[in-house]
């Protein structure tokens, strides 16, 4: 793996970084109440008495959220803790109606795990997961609607979150970026979180410290809260690391504090100094008994687990002969992988992969369409590749056929049939075209035979043109070679 070293005039430095990622759980209702988790409903529409912290209201654990957490834990190759506990994290804020957040502290539902990430230089690295716990989200405070008032929307209050904490295993911004993409891919495969960082359904806190290159000391770290895109996470790490280095090289010290990354200026600024850090007064949540999971429950989820990106990638390489790169690209997104597998069924998988990653994605991009809205179905893409491999059409015609498929949504056989695009493999007909051409272009024939072999392409082009692109290129090549001598 390529080492990431920040070199200054005074020395070499390396980064130590760990991430905490809050992932909103996909579930019908909130983690401790029956209110809906629908996104985009009217303000304060999805709020139960429990979510609003009304007197006498009690939380009840939503089993669906537990199911999703266990599934995620398994997807992170992590230990599922059969015993876990809820705790209260106490602090006052207007969008936290109970005055405390119900979370897990000492006994999280998921223990140690690991994820492999693939890096740009072709190497891979294992990132260790320290733990994952489940908790409730807070509401939203809106400060910009009035100069004197703040408004509170509790729709999000009580939505289930999974907080994934990594070990400080990242040594470069790229590694953190690759991890987040991989994590998002896994969560989407599992269907436990939609991973949309821009909508806030996945939020990242970044912990950064630096140390002289090659040393094993651990210096003071700073935390940047709620960085909301993969790109910003990478930028935040870089900018914060450079700030630390700058401070150290000028004889200063870094103090532990919470900071905020501003994408506009690419810098971080202080949010909260350590001395103003909350004392959260964690204690076991007396309203909820410990969460005890049976082997049966865990195994049932394990057996229902979908094939995850790594396994799928390995299978595509081994069974379908894809390159590691193609397999990785196709497997990043489950919908793409599923589409690919459907298209490749019974056809030349490598060719299908090329078409998918080439013309097909280009078409979607151009038309600004999601995969699910593609006018070209997986089956039709597969059929198109089949027409090529079985020599019914040649590659050039295939591009035209594909364009028509994208336009009309029709299947390629029908297009080829109706428009008479089948390629000519009849050697007699091609021979006739060649004979006519050689007769009419005697100069070029002479030049070719005189050593200008580069003209061969010109001959091929002429024949293809005259056959309206339908001549089988291999046949044309072979016959031309024979006739030109």
């Amino acid at each position, binding site marked *: 793996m390529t080492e990431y070293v920040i070199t200054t005039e005074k020395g070499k430095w390396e980064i130590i970084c760990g991430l905490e990622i809050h992932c909103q759980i996909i579930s019908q209702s909130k983690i401790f109440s029956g209110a809906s988790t629908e996104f985009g409903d009217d303000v304060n529409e999805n709020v139960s008495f429990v979510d609003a912290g009304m007197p*006498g209201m*009690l939380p009840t654990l939503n089993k669906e959220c537990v199911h999703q957490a266990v599934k995620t834990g398994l997807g992170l190759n992590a230990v599922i803790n059969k015993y876990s506990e809820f705790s209260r994290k106490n602090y006052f804020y207007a969008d936290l109606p109970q005055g405390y957040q119900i979370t897990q502290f000492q006994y999280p539902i998921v223990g140690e795990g690991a994820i492999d990430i693939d890096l740009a230089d072709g190497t891979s690295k294992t990132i260790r997961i320290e733990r994952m716990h489940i908790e409730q989200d807070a509401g939203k405070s809106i400060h910009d609607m009035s100069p004197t008032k703040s408004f*509170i929307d509790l729709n999000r209050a009580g939505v289930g979150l999974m907080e994934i904490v990594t070990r400080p295993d990242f040594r470069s911004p790229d590694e953190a970026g690759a991890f987040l993409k991989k994590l998002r891919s896994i969560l989407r495969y599992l269907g436990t979180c939609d991973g949309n960082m821009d909508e806030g359904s996945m939020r990242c806190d970044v912990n950064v410290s630096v140390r002289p290159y090659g040393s094993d000391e651990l210096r003071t770290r700073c935390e940047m809260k709620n960085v909301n895109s993969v790109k910003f996470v990478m930028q935040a790490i870089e900018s914060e690391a450079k700030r630390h280095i700058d401070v150290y090289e000028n004889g200063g010290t870094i103090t532990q504090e919470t900071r905020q990354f501003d994408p506009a200026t690419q810098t971080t600024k202080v949010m909260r100094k350590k001395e103003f850090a909350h004392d959260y007064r964690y204690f076991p949540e007396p309203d909820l008994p410990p969460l005890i999971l049976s082997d049966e429950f865990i195994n049932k989820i394990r057996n229902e687990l979908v094939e995850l990106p790594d396994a799928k990638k390995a299978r595509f390489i081994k069974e379908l002969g894809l390159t590691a790169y193609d397999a990785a690209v196709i497997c990043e997104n489950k919908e793409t992988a599923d589409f690919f597998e459907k298209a490749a069924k019974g056809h030349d998988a490598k060719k299908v992969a090329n078409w998918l990653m080439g013309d097909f994605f280009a078409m979607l991009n151009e038309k600004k369409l999601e995969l699910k809205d593609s006018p070209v179905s997986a089956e039709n893409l597969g059929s198109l590749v089949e027409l090529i491999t079985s020599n019914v059409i040649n590659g050039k015609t295939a591009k035209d056929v594909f364009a028509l498929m994208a336009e009309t949504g029709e299947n390629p056989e029908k297009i080829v049939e109706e428009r008479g695009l089948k390629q000519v493999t009849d050697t007699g007909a091609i021979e006739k075209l060649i004979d006519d051409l050689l007769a009419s272009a005697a100069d070029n024939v002479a030049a070719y035979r005189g050593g200008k072999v580069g003209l061969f392409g010109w001959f091929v082009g002429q024949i293809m043109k005259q056959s309206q692109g339908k001549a089988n290129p291999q046949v044309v090549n072979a016959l031309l070679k024979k006739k030109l001598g």
Partner: protein
Amino acid sequence: MSNLTDLTISETLRKFKAKEISPVEITKAYAENINACNKQYNAYVTTTIEQALEQAKTAEQNYMNGTNRPLEGIALGIKDLFCTKGVRTTACSHILDNFIPPYESTVTQNLLNDGALFLGKLNLDEFAMGGSNETSYFGPVVNPWSKEIKLVAGGSSGGSAAAVAAKMCAAATGTDTGGSIREPAAFCGVTGIKPTYGRCSRYGTIAFASSLDQAGPICKDVTDCALVLNSMAGYDEKDSTSSKIAVPDFASFLGKDIKGLKIGVPMEYRVDGLNPEVADYWDKAAEILKAAGAEVVSISLPHTKYALPTYYVIAPAEASSNLARYDGVRYGHRVEGNGLDELYISSRTDGFGREVKRRILIGTYVLSAGYYDAYYLKAQKVRRLIKNDFDSAFQKCDVILTPTSPIEPFAIGDKKMLENPINMYLNDVFTVSVNLAGLPAMSLPIGLSKNGLPLGMQLIGKAFDEETVFKTAYQLERGANFVRI
């Protein structure tokens, strides 16, 4: 007419069924008592007499139709800690003095479902924090046994005990976190039971200390307690700490033989300086049970001496968190301020009384970083030891007999009690360990002190063995032959 209100619930139900008296008639009689006495005793903070009379008419119809339910037409008072839909619920705190819940607590809903009707909401110590009902925002309840000097009714369910004693309702609901049903019942010469933790749902009951709070009835006698508790108790999916263990018909154990039953008398409770009158009645109670065929055995509860400090760490810790929601943001009393922090500080400073503030401070302190292990964690460990004490004791006996309170009712505004809150806390010495262990316990009147004031005896049972408590209490009640006001 007025002696209608002397009837117990069991007698009343018999007369309703025999059509000797009607629910409207008796509801009116209780209403008259309220009108006549409430100014004097300050038991009710809100009355709902018109609503009760409407319910009484329905009850009358149901008796006519033969569709009468178990508590059809029984007029109850409700401790103002239970949320009642559409009826102001205050916890006797200024911070909630205008709060009208849009939901019904499970316990009161169970009672309504069984045909009971509610005359109003009863006074209590603010948020149930107190042992004399003097911390109520609405002022102290006056013990109906008071002569020249106004005496406390006990707390925190002072309104409940006084209303039952003064015949302003047939029975009342109470809650008990450290003795809040049993001590006022003892002080007012009535009978109350705190069932096993988990018997009654806490949903919709304003929380004081979640791991200790438990609802129960305060009634004229043991039989009525059985009838009312049967209606209040039961599993509730809205309270994760409520128990799925089936609720037996408590009344079916009344009058059952207690021959051979082992009555445990804890030697550690026989503290030096125990009021000799209380000690004498304790002996007398043991004699009564012996005469009924039970065997009295000496038991040891060695960690009892730590019960009070343990309780006064755990209860305030939970309370400090439970009361965080009263912040002036969404409901209840609000004092506007410049910014969020000022709004919180002003609303809570103005809204909470001294004792509540004291406990919030204690609770915040014992949970804070650096003190958690020394206080909260240690208290949890001692709590386990106290529970273990009871487990071992119940190897040797079936039910435990102790006095309910070491003292008789004292004067409102008693200097010694007000000077040092610890003096007040000491009154809970016999009751708090029961809450820490989650056990069922009943207080019933045993006789009068030489000052003519009621004294109570406590029977503690094994978890979910209210049957034995009821069976024993019934015999003790018969032997004590206490005469209510």
